[in-house]
Protein backbone atom coordinates (compact mmCIF):
# COMPACT_ATOMS: atom_id res chain seq x y z
CA UNK A 1 0.00 0.00 0.00
CA UNK A 2 1.09 3.59 -0.64
CA UNK A 3 -0.60 6.96 -0.72
CA UNK A 4 -0.57 9.50 -3.53
CA UNK A 5 -1.77 13.07 -3.57
CA UNK A 6 -1.62 15.66 -6.32
CA UNK A 7 -2.73 19.28 -6.25
CA UNK A 8 -3.01 21.68 -9.18
CA UNK A 9 -3.79 25.36 -8.63
CA UNK A 10 -6.21 27.07 -11.01
CA UNK A 11 -5.85 30.60 -9.57
CA UNK A 12 -2.83 32.72 -8.49
CA UNK A 13 -4.37 32.95 -4.98
CA UNK A 14 -4.42 29.19 -4.70
CA UNK A 15 -0.83 28.94 -5.99
CA UNK A 16 0.25 31.06 -3.04
CA UNK A 17 -1.34 28.51 -0.68
CA UNK A 18 -0.28 25.35 -2.51
CA UNK A 19 1.91 24.00 0.32
CA UNK A 20 -0.61 25.05 2.95
CA UNK A 21 -3.18 22.70 1.37
CA UNK A 22 -0.80 20.00 0.16
CA UNK A 23 0.57 19.35 3.65
CA UNK A 24 -2.66 18.10 5.30
CA UNK A 25 -3.37 16.00 2.18
CA UNK A 26 0.04 14.36 2.57
CA UNK A 27 -0.41 13.83 6.32
CA UNK A 28 -3.85 12.26 5.79
CA UNK A 29 -2.15 9.54 3.73
CA UNK A 30 0.31 8.66 6.52
CA UNK A 31 -1.28 5.33 7.39
CA UNK A 32 -1.12 4.26 3.74
CA UNK A 33 2.65 4.84 3.78
CA UNK A 34 4.52 5.61 7.01
CA UNK A 35 7.96 4.41 5.75
CA UNK A 36 8.98 7.46 3.77
CA UNK A 37 7.55 10.38 1.90
CA UNK A 38 8.41 12.71 -0.93
CA UNK A 39 7.15 15.84 -2.63
CA UNK A 40 7.61 17.19 -6.14
CA UNK A 41 6.80 20.87 -6.40
CA UNK A 42 6.78 23.07 -9.49
CA UNK A 43 7.86 26.59 -8.52
CA UNK A 44 10.37 29.39 -9.12
CA UNK A 45 11.23 28.67 -12.78
CA UNK A 46 14.82 29.56 -13.65
CA UNK A 47 15.50 32.12 -16.41
CA UNK A 48 15.96 30.84 -19.98
CA UNK A 49 19.23 29.06 -20.55
CA UNK A 50 19.58 27.93 -16.95
CA UNK A 51 18.71 24.58 -15.40
CA UNK A 52 17.64 23.65 -11.89
CA UNK A 53 18.62 20.38 -10.21
CA UNK A 54 17.54 19.00 -6.85
CA UNK A 55 20.44 17.15 -5.24
CA UNK A 56 20.33 14.70 -2.36
CA UNK A 57 23.32 13.69 -0.27
CA UNK A 58 23.15 10.09 0.91
CA UNK A 59 26.21 10.52 3.15
CA UNK A 60 25.43 11.29 6.80
CA UNK A 61 27.86 14.22 6.81
CA UNK A 62 28.54 15.90 3.55
CA UNK A 63 30.88 18.85 2.88
CA UNK A 64 28.58 20.86 0.60
CA UNK A 65 31.10 23.75 0.55
CA UNK A 66 33.83 21.53 -0.94
CA UNK A 67 31.28 20.16 -3.39
CA UNK A 68 30.24 23.68 -4.43
CA UNK A 69 33.83 24.83 -4.86
CA UNK A 70 34.71 21.87 -7.08
CA UNK A 71 31.46 22.26 -9.01
CA UNK A 72 32.09 25.96 -9.67
CA UNK A 73 35.63 25.09 -10.80
CA UNK A 74 34.22 22.61 -13.35
CA UNK A 75 31.14 24.67 -14.27
CA UNK A 76 31.69 28.45 -14.19
CA UNK A 77 28.01 28.84 -15.16
CA UNK A 78 26.77 27.78 -11.71
CA UNK A 79 24.46 30.54 -10.42
CA UNK A 80 23.52 29.15 -7.02
CA UNK A 81 23.45 26.25 -4.57
CA UNK A 82 20.85 26.48 -1.81
CA UNK A 83 20.91 23.91 0.98
CA UNK A 84 17.81 22.46 2.61
CA UNK A 85 18.77 19.70 5.06
CA UNK A 86 20.47 16.94 3.08
CA UNK A 87 19.03 18.36 -0.16
CA UNK A 88 20.29 21.22 -2.28
CA UNK A 89 18.91 23.21 -5.20
CA UNK A 90 21.51 23.86 -7.87
CA UNK A 91 20.98 26.38 -10.68
CA UNK A 92 23.41 26.86 -13.55
CA UNK A 93 23.94 27.88 -17.14
CA UNK A 94 24.80 24.33 -18.19
CA UNK A 95 23.21 21.20 -19.60
CA UNK A 96 21.60 19.11 -16.88
CA UNK A 97 23.03 15.90 -18.36
CA UNK A 98 26.56 17.35 -18.07
CA UNK A 99 25.97 18.39 -14.46
CA UNK A 100 24.47 15.00 -13.56
CA UNK A 101 27.33 13.15 -15.26
CA UNK A 102 29.94 15.21 -13.43
CA UNK A 103 28.22 14.70 -10.07
CA UNK A 104 27.95 10.93 -10.63
CA UNK A 105 31.66 10.72 -11.55
CA UNK A 106 33.00 12.96 -8.78
CA UNK A 107 30.51 12.71 -5.91
CA UNK A 108 28.77 9.32 -6.06
CA UNK A 109 27.12 9.97 -2.67
CA UNK A 110 25.12 12.78 -4.27
CA UNK A 111 21.98 11.79 -6.15
CA UNK A 112 20.15 13.95 -8.65
CA UNK A 113 16.49 13.87 -7.54
CA UNK A 114 15.24 16.02 -10.37
CA UNK A 115 16.29 18.26 -13.21
CA UNK A 116 14.52 20.80 -15.35
CA UNK A 117 13.51 24.42 -15.09
CA UNK A 118 10.80 24.38 -12.42
CA UNK A 119 10.63 20.99 -10.68
CA UNK A 120 12.08 20.34 -7.21
CA UNK A 121 11.89 16.90 -5.55
CA UNK A 122 12.35 16.38 -1.82
CA UNK A 123 12.16 12.93 -0.28
CA UNK A 124 13.26 11.18 2.86
CA UNK A 125 12.87 8.07 4.95
CA UNK A 126 10.56 8.64 7.89
CA UNK A 127 7.03 9.73 8.66
CA UNK A 128 5.37 12.14 6.22
CA UNK A 129 5.01 14.66 9.07
CA UNK A 130 8.80 14.73 9.52
CA UNK A 131 9.36 15.10 5.80
CA UNK A 132 6.80 17.92 5.55
CA UNK A 133 8.44 19.67 8.50
CA UNK A 134 12.05 19.19 7.35
CA UNK A 135 11.43 20.72 3.93
CA UNK A 136 8.91 23.37 4.96
CA UNK A 137 6.29 21.95 2.61
CA UNK A 138 3.48 24.07 4.09
CA UNK A 139 5.28 27.21 2.88
CA UNK A 140 5.56 26.05 -0.74
CA UNK A 141 4.23 28.47 -3.32
CA UNK A 142 3.88 26.93 -6.76
CA UNK A 143 1.64 25.98 -9.63
CA UNK A 144 1.25 22.28 -8.77
CA UNK A 145 2.72 19.51 -6.66
CA UNK A 146 2.63 15.74 -6.21
CA UNK A 147 3.41 13.85 -3.03
CA UNK A 148 3.77 10.22 -2.02
CA UNK A 149 3.72 8.21 1.19
CA UNK A 150 5.43 4.85 0.90
CA UNK A 151 4.71 1.48 2.47
CA UNK A 152 7.45 -0.65 0.96
CA UNK A 153 6.45 -4.07 -0.35
CA UNK A 154 9.20 -5.10 -2.75
CA UNK A 155 12.44 -3.26 -1.98
CA UNK A 156 14.27 -1.61 0.89
CA UNK A 157 13.10 1.36 2.93
CA UNK A 158 15.66 4.05 2.13
CA UNK A 159 15.53 7.65 0.95
CA UNK A 160 16.77 6.58 -2.50
CA UNK A 161 13.91 4.09 -2.82
CA UNK A 162 11.36 6.79 -2.00
CA UNK A 163 9.16 8.53 -4.53
CA UNK A 164 8.81 10.74 -6.59
CA UNK A 165 11.21 9.45 -9.23
CA UNK A 166 12.46 11.74 -11.97
CA UNK A 167 11.54 10.68 -15.49
CA UNK A 168 13.24 13.44 -17.40
CA UNK A 169 13.36 17.22 -17.54
CA UNK A 170 10.61 18.59 -15.27
CA UNK A 171 8.95 15.16 -15.18
CA UNK A 172 8.36 12.86 -12.25
CA UNK A 173 6.38 9.80 -11.28
CA UNK A 174 4.72 8.55 -8.11
CA UNK A 175 3.31 5.04 -7.92
CA UNK A 176 0.91 3.07 -5.75
CA UNK A 177 1.10 -0.61 -6.59
CA UNK A 178 3.67 -3.18 -7.64
CA UNK A 179 5.15 -4.24 -10.95
CA UNK A 180 5.95 -7.87 -11.66
CA UNK A 181 8.15 -7.55 -14.77
CA UNK A 182 10.46 -4.81 -13.51
CA UNK A 183 13.66 -6.90 -13.45
CA UNK A 184 13.46 -7.81 -17.13
CA UNK A 185 12.42 -4.29 -18.08
CA UNK A 186 15.27 -2.76 -16.07
CA UNK A 187 17.80 -4.91 -17.93
CA UNK A 188 16.31 -3.93 -21.28
CA UNK A 189 16.26 -0.24 -20.37
CA UNK A 190 19.85 -0.31 -19.07
CA UNK A 191 20.91 -1.58 -22.50
CA UNK A 192 19.23 1.51 -23.96
CA UNK A 193 21.26 3.77 -21.69
CA UNK A 194 18.74 4.44 -18.91
CA UNK A 195 20.51 4.79 -15.56
CA UNK A 196 19.04 3.25 -12.38
CA UNK A 197 20.18 3.86 -8.82
CA UNK A 198 18.01 1.31 -6.93
CA UNK A 199 16.30 -2.07 -7.36
CA UNK A 200 12.91 -0.39 -6.94
CA UNK A 201 10.06 -1.35 -9.31
CA UNK A 202 8.63 2.17 -9.53
CA UNK A 203 12.00 3.52 -10.66
CA UNK A 204 11.69 1.13 -13.61
CA UNK A 205 8.30 2.61 -14.50
CA UNK A 206 9.93 6.05 -14.33
CA UNK A 207 12.85 4.81 -16.46
CA UNK A 208 10.43 3.34 -18.98
CA UNK A 209 8.69 6.71 -19.40
CA UNK A 210 12.08 8.46 -19.61
CA UNK A 211 13.06 6.13 -22.45
CA UNK A 212 9.82 6.61 -24.38
CA UNK A 213 9.97 10.40 -24.00
CA UNK A 214 13.62 10.39 -25.15
CA UNK A 215 12.45 8.43 -28.19
CA UNK A 216 10.10 11.28 -29.02
CA UNK A 217 6.80 9.98 -27.64
CA UNK A 218 4.32 12.48 -26.23
CA UNK A 219 3.43 11.85 -22.58
CA UNK A 220 0.10 10.33 -23.70
CA UNK A 221 1.84 8.03 -26.19
CA UNK A 222 4.41 6.99 -23.56
CA UNK A 223 1.63 6.16 -21.09
CA UNK A 224 -0.30 4.23 -23.74
CA UNK A 225 2.84 2.17 -24.31
CA UNK A 226 3.25 1.72 -20.53
CA UNK A 227 -0.22 0.12 -20.34
CA UNK A 228 1.02 -2.51 -22.79
CA UNK A 229 4.54 -3.07 -21.44
CA UNK A 230 4.18 -2.75 -17.67
CA UNK A 231 2.81 -5.84 -15.96
CA UNK A 232 1.39 -5.23 -12.51
CA UNK A 233 -0.81 -3.02 -10.44
CA UNK A 234 -0.53 0.71 -10.48
CA UNK A 235 -2.05 4.05 -9.97
CA UNK A 236 0.46 6.52 -11.38
CA UNK A 237 0.52 10.26 -10.99
CA UNK A 238 2.93 11.97 -13.38
CA UNK A 239 4.08 15.53 -12.86
CA UNK A 240 4.91 17.64 -15.91
CA UNK A 241 6.15 21.22 -16.24
CA UNK A 242 2.61 22.44 -16.88
CA UNK A 243 0.46 20.04 -14.90
CA UNK A 244 -0.06 16.43 -14.05
CA UNK A 245 -1.55 13.19 -15.39
CA UNK A 246 -3.16 10.20 -13.70
CA UNK A 247 -3.28 6.63 -14.97
CA UNK A 248 -4.64 3.43 -13.39
CA UNK A 249 -3.89 -0.02 -14.76
CA UNK A 250 -6.74 -1.81 -16.57
CA UNK A 251 -7.53 -4.05 -13.56
CA UNK A 252 -7.71 -0.95 -11.34
CA UNK A 253 -7.32 -2.53 -7.90
CA UNK A 254 -5.37 0.47 -6.65
CA UNK A 255 -7.63 3.33 -5.65
CA UNK A 256 -7.77 6.90 -6.90
CA UNK A 257 -10.21 9.78 -6.59
CA UNK A 258 -10.15 13.05 -8.52
CA UNK A 259 -12.02 16.21 -7.62
CA UNK A 260 -12.21 19.62 -9.24
CA UNK A 261 -13.46 23.09 -8.33
CA UNK A 262 -12.91 26.56 -9.82
CA UNK A 263 -9.84 26.93 -7.59
CA UNK A 264 -8.09 23.58 -7.88
CA UNK A 265 -7.88 20.07 -9.32
CA UNK A 266 -6.72 17.36 -6.96
CA UNK A 267 -6.20 13.61 -6.96
CA UNK A 268 -5.58 11.27 -4.06
CA UNK A 269 -5.60 7.60 -3.20
CA UNK A 270 -8.61 8.26 -0.97
CA UNK A 271 -11.24 10.94 -0.66
CA UNK A 272 -10.27 11.75 2.93
CA UNK A 273 -7.08 13.38 1.61
CA UNK A 274 -9.22 15.64 -0.60
CA UNK A 275 -11.65 16.47 2.22
CA UNK A 276 -9.13 18.97 3.64
CA UNK A 277 -9.42 21.20 0.55
CA UNK A 278 -11.74 24.22 0.50
CA UNK A 279 -15.08 23.30 -1.07
CA UNK A 280 -14.20 19.59 -1.36
CA UNK A 281 -17.63 18.47 -0.14
CA UNK A 282 -19.31 20.36 -2.99
CA UNK A 283 -16.65 19.59 -5.61
CA UNK A 284 -17.28 17.48 -8.64
CA UNK A 285 -15.51 14.23 -7.75
CA UNK A 286 -15.08 10.92 -9.54
CA UNK A 287 -13.02 7.77 -9.71
CA UNK A 288 -10.72 7.66 -12.76
CA UNK A 289 -11.67 4.85 -15.13
CA UNK A 290 -9.24 1.95 -15.65
CA UNK A 291 -6.60 2.32 -18.36
CA UNK A 292 -7.59 5.90 -19.19
CA UNK A 293 -5.22 8.87 -19.05
CA UNK A 294 -6.43 12.01 -17.28
CA UNK A 295 -4.36 15.16 -17.51
CA UNK A 296 -4.46 18.83 -16.62
CA UNK A 297 -2.12 21.59 -17.69
CA UNK A 298 -1.81 25.32 -17.29
Amino acid at each position, binding site marked *: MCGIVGLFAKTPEFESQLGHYLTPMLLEMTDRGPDSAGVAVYRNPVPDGQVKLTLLSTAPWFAWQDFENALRYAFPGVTGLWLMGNHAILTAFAASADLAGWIRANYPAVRVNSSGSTIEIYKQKGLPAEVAHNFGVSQFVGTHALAHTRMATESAVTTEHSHPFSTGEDLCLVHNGSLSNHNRLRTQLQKRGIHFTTDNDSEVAAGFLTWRLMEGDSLEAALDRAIVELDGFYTFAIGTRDGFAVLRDPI*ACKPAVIAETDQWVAMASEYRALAVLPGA*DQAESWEPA*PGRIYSWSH
Partner: protein
Amino acid sequence: MVHHFDLAHASTRDLNHALHAFNGTDNDTAWQIKNANGLHNLAVGLDAPLTVDIEGHVGYYCAGMNKFARVTVHGNAGPGVAENMMSGVVRITGSASQYAGATAHGGLLIIEGHASSRCGISMKGVNIVVHGSVGHMSAFMAQSGRLVVCGDAGDALGDSLYEARLYVRGNVAGLGADCVEKVMKDKHKYEVDGLLREAGVSGADAAEFRRFGSARKLYNFNVDNADAY
Protein backbone atom coordinates in the same frame (compact mmCIF):
# COMPACT_ATOMS: atom_id res chain seq x y z
CA MET B 1 -35.85 10.85 18.89
CA VAL B 2 -32.82 11.56 16.73
CA HIS B 3 -29.28 11.09 17.97
CA HIS B 4 -26.72 13.49 16.51
CA PHE B 5 -23.13 12.43 16.18
CA ASP B 6 -20.31 14.66 14.91
CA LEU B 7 -17.21 12.86 13.68
CA ALA B 8 -15.29 16.14 13.92
CA HIS B 9 -15.37 15.67 17.69
CA ALA B 10 -15.37 11.88 18.16
CA SER B 11 -13.71 8.86 16.57
CA THR B 12 -15.00 6.16 14.26
CA ARG B 13 -14.61 3.73 17.13
CA ASP B 14 -16.77 5.95 19.37
CA LEU B 15 -19.48 6.00 16.71
CA ASN B 16 -19.49 2.26 16.11
CA HIS B 17 -19.38 1.61 19.85
CA ALA B 18 -22.45 3.82 20.33
CA LEU B 19 -24.33 2.08 17.50
CA HIS B 20 -23.33 -1.40 18.68
CA ALA B 21 -24.91 -0.67 22.06
CA PHE B 22 -28.25 -1.39 20.31
CA ASN B 23 -27.12 -4.67 18.72
CA GLY B 24 -29.47 -7.54 19.44
CA THR B 25 -32.36 -5.19 20.25
CA ASP B 26 -35.36 -4.05 18.18
CA ASN B 27 -34.55 -0.41 18.88
CA ASP B 28 -35.34 1.73 15.82
CA THR B 29 -33.75 5.03 16.81
CA ALA B 30 -32.67 7.47 14.10
CA TRP B 31 -29.04 8.64 13.92
CA GLN B 32 -27.62 11.64 12.08
CA ILE B 33 -23.87 11.45 11.51
CA LYS B 34 -21.97 14.60 10.47
CA ASN B 35 -18.47 15.20 9.05
CA ALA B 36 -17.79 11.77 7.56
CA ASN B 37 -14.99 13.30 5.42
CA GLY B 38 -14.03 9.99 3.83
CA LEU B 39 -13.46 8.10 7.09
CA HIS B 40 -13.32 4.31 6.92
CA ASN B 41 -15.49 1.68 8.63
CA LEU B 42 -18.41 3.93 9.52
CA ALA B 43 -21.54 2.17 10.85
CA VAL B 44 -20.17 -1.34 10.46
CA GLY B 45 -21.50 -4.40 12.23
CA LEU B 46 -24.94 -3.00 13.05
CA ASP B 47 -27.49 -5.54 14.30
CA ALA B 48 -30.63 -3.51 15.12
CA PRO B 49 -33.27 -1.73 12.96
CA LEU B 50 -31.65 1.69 13.42
CA THR B 51 -32.00 4.42 10.78
CA VAL B 52 -28.57 5.93 10.19
CA ASP B 53 -28.03 8.95 7.94
CA ILE B 54 -24.43 9.87 7.18
CA GLU B 55 -23.73 13.33 5.74
CA GLY B 56 -20.82 13.52 3.32
CA HIS B 57 -18.59 11.08 1.48
CA VAL B 58 -17.42 7.93 3.29
CA GLY B 59 -14.22 5.89 2.95
CA TYR B 60 -13.69 2.12 2.87
CA TYR B 61 -16.15 -0.53 4.13
CA CYS B 62 -19.06 1.66 5.21
CA ALA B 63 -22.03 -0.33 6.58
CA GLY B 64 -20.15 -3.60 6.32
CA MET B 65 -21.86 -6.69 7.79
CA ASN B 66 -25.06 -4.67 8.20
CA LYS B 67 -28.04 -6.47 9.72
CA PHE B 68 -31.55 -4.91 9.99
CA ALA B 69 -30.34 -1.28 9.89
CA ARG B 70 -31.22 1.29 7.19
CA VAL B 71 -28.02 3.18 6.45
CA THR B 72 -28.05 6.12 4.00
CA VAL B 73 -24.86 7.81 2.84
CA HIS B 74 -25.57 11.30 1.51
CA GLY B 75 -22.53 11.36 -0.73
CA ASN B 76 -20.12 8.92 -2.38
CA ALA B 77 -18.82 5.70 -0.85
CA GLY B 78 -15.27 4.33 -1.01
CA PRO B 79 -14.35 0.69 -1.69
CA GLY B 80 -16.29 -2.19 -0.14
CA VAL B 81 -19.51 -0.46 0.88
CA ALA B 82 -22.02 -2.89 2.48
CA GLU B 83 -19.50 -5.69 2.22
CA ASN B 84 -20.97 -8.91 3.62
CA MET B 85 -24.29 -7.22 4.43
CA MET B 86 -26.81 -9.68 5.91
CA SER B 87 -30.08 -7.71 5.78
CA GLY B 88 -31.45 -4.18 5.98
CA VAL B 89 -31.01 -1.40 3.42
CA VAL B 90 -27.88 0.52 2.50
CA ARG B 91 -28.44 3.50 0.18
CA ILE B 92 -25.73 5.63 -1.40
CA THR B 93 -27.02 8.87 -2.91
CA GLY B 94 -23.78 9.36 -4.88
CA SER B 95 -21.48 6.83 -6.52
CA ALA B 96 -19.69 3.83 -5.01
CA SER B 97 -16.11 2.69 -5.53
CA GLN B 98 -15.01 -0.86 -6.26
CA TYR B 99 -16.50 -4.08 -4.85
CA ALA B 100 -19.72 -2.57 -3.53
CA GLY B 101 -21.82 -5.26 -1.85
CA ALA B 102 -19.05 -7.87 -2.04
CA THR B 103 -20.05 -11.26 -0.57
CA ALA B 104 -23.29 -9.75 0.80
CA HIS B 105 -25.83 -12.36 1.92
CA GLY B 106 -29.04 -10.36 2.01
CA GLY B 107 -30.77 -7.01 2.23
CA LEU B 108 -30.89 -4.28 -0.41
CA LEU B 109 -28.01 -2.10 -1.58
CA ILE B 110 -29.07 0.97 -3.58
CA ILE B 111 -26.49 3.04 -5.42
CA GLU B 112 -28.08 6.14 -6.91
CA GLY B 113 -24.97 7.12 -8.90
CA HIS B 114 -22.56 4.68 -10.52
CA ALA B 115 -20.70 1.71 -9.07
CA SER B 116 -17.17 1.03 -10.25
CA SER B 117 -15.44 -2.30 -10.83
CA ARG B 118 -16.35 -5.60 -9.16
CA CYS B 119 -19.77 -4.47 -7.94
CA GLY B 120 -21.47 -7.46 -6.30
CA ILE B 121 -18.40 -9.68 -6.47
CA SER B 122 -19.22 -13.04 -4.89
CA MET B 123 -22.67 -11.81 -3.83
CA LYS B 124 -24.51 -14.48 -1.88
CA GLY B 125 -28.14 -13.33 -1.80
CA VAL B 126 -28.14 -9.54 -1.62
CA ASN B 127 -30.18 -7.44 -4.03
CA ILE B 128 -28.21 -4.59 -5.57
CA VAL B 129 -29.85 -1.82 -7.62
CA VAL B 130 -27.57 0.68 -9.36
CA HIS B 131 -29.30 3.72 -10.87
CA GLY B 132 -26.26 4.37 -13.08
CA SER B 133 -23.62 2.03 -14.53
CA VAL B 134 -21.28 -0.61 -13.11
CA GLY B 135 -17.60 -1.16 -13.92
CA HIS B 136 -15.72 -4.22 -15.14
CA MET B 137 -15.87 -7.65 -13.49
CA SER B 138 -19.17 -6.91 -11.77
CA ALA B 139 -20.96 -9.93 -10.25
CA PHE B 140 -17.75 -11.97 -10.55
CA MET B 141 -18.48 -15.42 -9.05
CA ALA B 142 -21.87 -14.15 -7.88
CA GLN B 143 -23.71 -16.97 -6.16
CA SER B 144 -27.24 -15.73 -5.55
CA GLY B 145 -29.29 -12.56 -5.34
CA ARG B 146 -30.11 -10.01 -8.01
CA LEU B 147 -28.02 -7.22 -9.55
CA VAL B 148 -30.08 -4.60 -11.40
CA VAL B 149 -28.13 -2.05 -13.46
CA CYS B 150 -30.13 0.82 -14.96
CA GLY B 151 -27.14 2.07 -17.00
CA ASP B 152 -24.35 0.14 -18.68
CA ALA B 153 -22.17 -2.74 -17.48
CA GLY B 154 -18.38 -2.87 -17.97
CA ASP B 155 -16.36 -5.72 -19.39
CA ALA B 156 -16.52 -9.32 -18.14
CA LEU B 157 -19.94 -9.06 -16.50
CA GLY B 158 -20.81 -12.12 -14.43
CA ASP B 159 -17.54 -13.96 -14.95
CA SER B 160 -17.68 -17.48 -13.43
CA LEU B 161 -21.23 -16.80 -12.32
CA TYR B 162 -23.22 -19.21 -10.15
CA GLU B 163 -26.93 -18.59 -9.62
CA ALA B 164 -27.22 -14.81 -9.21
CA ARG B 165 -29.54 -13.06 -11.70
CA LEU B 166 -28.21 -10.00 -13.51
CA TYR B 167 -30.41 -7.40 -15.20
CA VAL B 168 -28.96 -4.61 -17.33
CA ARG B 169 -30.88 -1.86 -19.12
CA GLY B 170 -28.00 -0.30 -21.08
CA ASN B 171 -25.03 -1.70 -22.98
CA VAL B 172 -22.90 -4.56 -21.76
CA ALA B 173 -19.26 -4.13 -22.76
CA GLY B 174 -18.69 -7.88 -22.57
CA LEU B 175 -19.73 -11.02 -20.75
CA GLY B 176 -17.38 -13.00 -18.54
CA ALA B 177 -16.74 -16.75 -18.78
CA ASP B 178 -19.92 -18.83 -18.58
CA CYS B 179 -22.22 -15.79 -18.40
CA VAL B 180 -24.94 -15.76 -21.06
CA GLU B 181 -27.98 -13.71 -21.96
CA LYS B 182 -31.26 -15.40 -21.04
CA VAL B 183 -34.89 -14.85 -21.96
CA MET B 184 -36.62 -12.08 -20.03
CA LYS B 185 -39.88 -13.73 -18.99
CA ASP B 186 -42.80 -11.99 -17.31
CA LYS B 187 -41.73 -13.34 -13.92
CA HIS B 188 -38.35 -11.65 -14.40
CA LYS B 189 -39.96 -8.36 -15.42
CA TYR B 190 -42.09 -8.62 -12.31
CA GLU B 191 -38.96 -9.22 -10.23
CA VAL B 192 -37.16 -6.20 -11.76
CA ASP B 193 -40.24 -4.01 -11.40
CA GLY B 194 -40.42 -4.78 -7.69
CA LEU B 195 -36.73 -4.01 -7.16
CA LEU B 196 -36.92 -0.74 -9.13
CA ARG B 197 -39.82 0.38 -6.93
CA GLU B 198 -38.02 -0.64 -3.76
CA ALA B 199 -34.92 1.24 -4.87
CA GLY B 200 -36.84 4.39 -5.86
CA VAL B 201 -35.83 4.26 -9.52
CA SER B 202 -38.07 6.42 -11.67
CA GLY B 203 -38.14 6.58 -15.44
CA ALA B 204 -37.05 3.00 -16.03
CA ASP B 205 -39.38 0.26 -17.24
CA ALA B 206 -38.69 -3.36 -16.32
CA ALA B 207 -39.38 -4.31 -19.93
CA GLU B 208 -36.24 -2.39 -21.03
CA PHE B 209 -33.90 -4.71 -19.12
CA ARG B 210 -32.05 -7.74 -20.41
CA ARG B 211 -31.33 -10.75 -18.21
CA PHE B 212 -27.99 -12.51 -17.83
CA GLY B 213 -27.16 -15.64 -15.90
CA SER B 214 -24.94 -18.68 -15.70
CA ALA B 215 -24.69 -21.14 -18.59
CA ARG B 216 -23.85 -23.65 -15.81
CA LYS B 217 -21.03 -25.18 -17.84
CA LEU B 218 -18.21 -23.97 -15.64
CA TYR B 219 -19.24 -24.91 -12.14
CA ASN B 220 -20.94 -28.22 -12.98
CA PHE B 221 -18.27 -30.82 -13.54
CA ASN B 222 -18.63 -32.31 -16.98
CA VAL B 223 -17.19 -35.79 -17.36
CA ASP B 224 -16.30 -35.02 -21.00
CA ASN B 225 -13.72 -32.55 -19.67
CA ALA B 226 -12.01 -35.08 -17.38
CA ASP B 227 -8.95 -35.20 -19.64
CA ALA B 228 -8.39 -31.49 -19.12
CA TYR B 229 -7.62 -31.90 -15.42
